[in-house]
């Protein structure tokens, strides 16, 4: 035990010799890991959140596809779907997009049916229950400087200004779901968008038994070949994929980090310097065994990479869960004008951290130890000849 600690001691002395270079490596390496871990933690938090929240989504959404596009669906379809066994409520959904010329941002309009509850825990005020009332998301409220008790003027499909009373405003903590929403009664939305009589945007289908959802979806598809049923599990799966590790950015950054490792490893593997080889020879001549030398190199690699990993991880955890991903948010935000402020629900698995640690520490240590192998097993006689 003591011997290992002492070899660590010598490794640290050796690193200390080139402290500025090694410090620079820790900084760059730690930064890479911080970025990597931030993306990983954030996408994971978002994925976890999506999964949890969207359990509240409709069991089945039936949209109509015409000419390869999402099209308005005849409300009549609902009657027939309701007749299928295992199906409960089938309600037409009215929703759509609205480009707000004042703020040059996109809003999402959502219609709700008349019926309680009108109050939600995350809603200040209430949902619209009378004509010309609306509830707004935090992003909309901020963009249009409106709120409960104020008005919101929107332009209808025929170019007329329509004034709504804001009766509810969603709390900031629900932003991830409601940021760009304006909620109306269905009737108001139909009028605003000019949706033709007998049409809806899509149908929301309630299925009593979770296990039957895909059966119902298949039947709907058979009866109405022009529809596309989307089950809740597909929605969840979409979000799983959306935030998956495969996401392009992660891959790019990861590829870059990996490339950096490879260059480093290549640089080292293509031969340690004559100076290093001589030093290893001297150590061996002075009574160090091959194992001791390799252990020294192991500690050198481990000290650098472990420190970088831990510092990077700390930075990432602080960044994502304490600072709300303030540095990464603009990257993710992209061109969205309304962007919800993130309060991440942490979802960290130890497995995740181990994978990250494994992927960062091990290659570095390996690329430190491996190239010294040959010098370490050679008889030290060479150093006698200079």
């Amino acid at each position, binding site marked *: 035990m003591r011997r290992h600690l*002492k*070899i660590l001691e*010598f490794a640290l002395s*050796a690193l200390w010799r080139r402290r500025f270079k090694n410090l620079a490596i820790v900084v760059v390496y730690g930064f890479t890991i911080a970025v990597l871990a931030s993306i990983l933690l954030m996408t994971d938090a978002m994925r976890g959140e999506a999964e949890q929240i969207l359990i509240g989504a409709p069991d089945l959404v039936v949209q109509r596809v015409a000419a390869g596009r999402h099209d308005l669906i005849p409300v009549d379809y609902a009657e027939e779907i309701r007749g299928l066994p295992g199906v409960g409520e089938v309600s037409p959904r009215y929703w759509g997009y609205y480009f707000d010329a004042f703020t040059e941002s996109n809003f999402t309009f959502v219609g709700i049916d008349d019926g309680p509850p009108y109050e939600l825990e995350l809603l200040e005020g209430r949902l619209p229950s009378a004509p010309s009332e609306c509830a707004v998301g935090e992003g909309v409220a901020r963009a249009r400087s409106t709120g409960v008790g104020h008005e919101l003027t929107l332009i209808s499909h025929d170019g007329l200004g329509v004034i709504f009373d804001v009766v509810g405003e969603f709390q900031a903590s629900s932003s991830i779901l409601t940021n760009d929403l304006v909620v109306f009664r269905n009737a108001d939305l139909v009028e605003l968008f000019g949706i033709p009589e007998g049409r809806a945007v899509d149908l929301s289908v309630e299925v009593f038994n979770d296990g039957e959802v895909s059966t119902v979806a298949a039947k709907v598809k058979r009866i109405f070949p022009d529809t596309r049923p989307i089950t809740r599990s597909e929605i969840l799966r979409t979000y799983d994929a959306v935030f998956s590790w495969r996401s392009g950015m992660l891959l790019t950054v990861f590829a870059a980090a990996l490339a950096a490792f490879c260059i480093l490893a290549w640089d080292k593997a293509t031969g340690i310097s004559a100076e290093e080889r001589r030093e290893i020879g001297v150590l061996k*001549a*002075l009574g*160090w*065994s091959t194992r*001791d030398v390799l252990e020294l190199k192991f500690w050198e690699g481990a000290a650098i990479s472990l420190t970088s990993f831990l510092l990077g991880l700390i930075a990432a955890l602080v960044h994502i869960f304490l600072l709300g991903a303030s540095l990464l948010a603009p990257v993710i935000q992209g061109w969205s004008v309304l962007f919800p402020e993130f309060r991440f629900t942490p979802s960290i698995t130890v497995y995740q951290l181990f994978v990250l640690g494994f992927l960062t520490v091990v290659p570095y240590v390996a690329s430190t130890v491996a190239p010294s192998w040959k010098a370490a097993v050679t*008889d030290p006689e060479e150093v006698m000849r200079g």
Partner: protein
Amino acid sequence: MTAGHERFIATDGVSKTYNPRRADPVRAVDTVTMHVDRGEVLVLEGPSGSGKTSLLSLIGCMSRPTAGRIVVDGRDVAKLAESELTMERRQRFGFIFQQFHLVADLPVIENVLVPLYPTELSLREMRRRAHAALGRFALDAKASRKVRTLSGGEQQRVAIARALVNDPQVVVADEPTAHLDRRLAEELLAILEDIHRDGRTVVIATHDPRIFDHPIVDRVLEMRDGRIVGERRR
């Protein structure tokens, strides 16, 4: 000056061939049979390329022979596993290299500590021994200086302190005076004499007459083309 007659190291028909499988094998040491007595000062002399360094590294457990036996203190080391050979080297030998082979940007004390790291000694004990070894050469005050800031003579003394820090039975020196001026060579010989007086065995390879004419030397072995061709006793 007690040149004992107890065999400490003995070689028996030892050969060392470099590149044995290549078209041009080099037989650097050719069936050499010799011995080193405990407590003696032995010099290997011979022209450049005669195999002094090669024989010295065989004796010093730095390399293994292609043929023959080497017995160190009753133990055949010719066929020892690498780790065993390392143990022998660590416990019995101290090396003084021609080029010192110090790590220039480590402090003096760290350089002297190097042989002690792979042992079970505590760090405190290691430091104590290193300071003692340095103190012997009046280098204690410079213990935390970087080696590169020392003079050549001081560097040599650091190298010798390092060779002595593990309290070796045998001190092996290869061309220790090759790059030294007269004064430093004298100083070195005085140190070697001192080391010898400790009761240590000293083996030196050199072609420097200043050494093999020196009174401390007990015996000189002459080498030519990998063979021992003569022996002078004093």
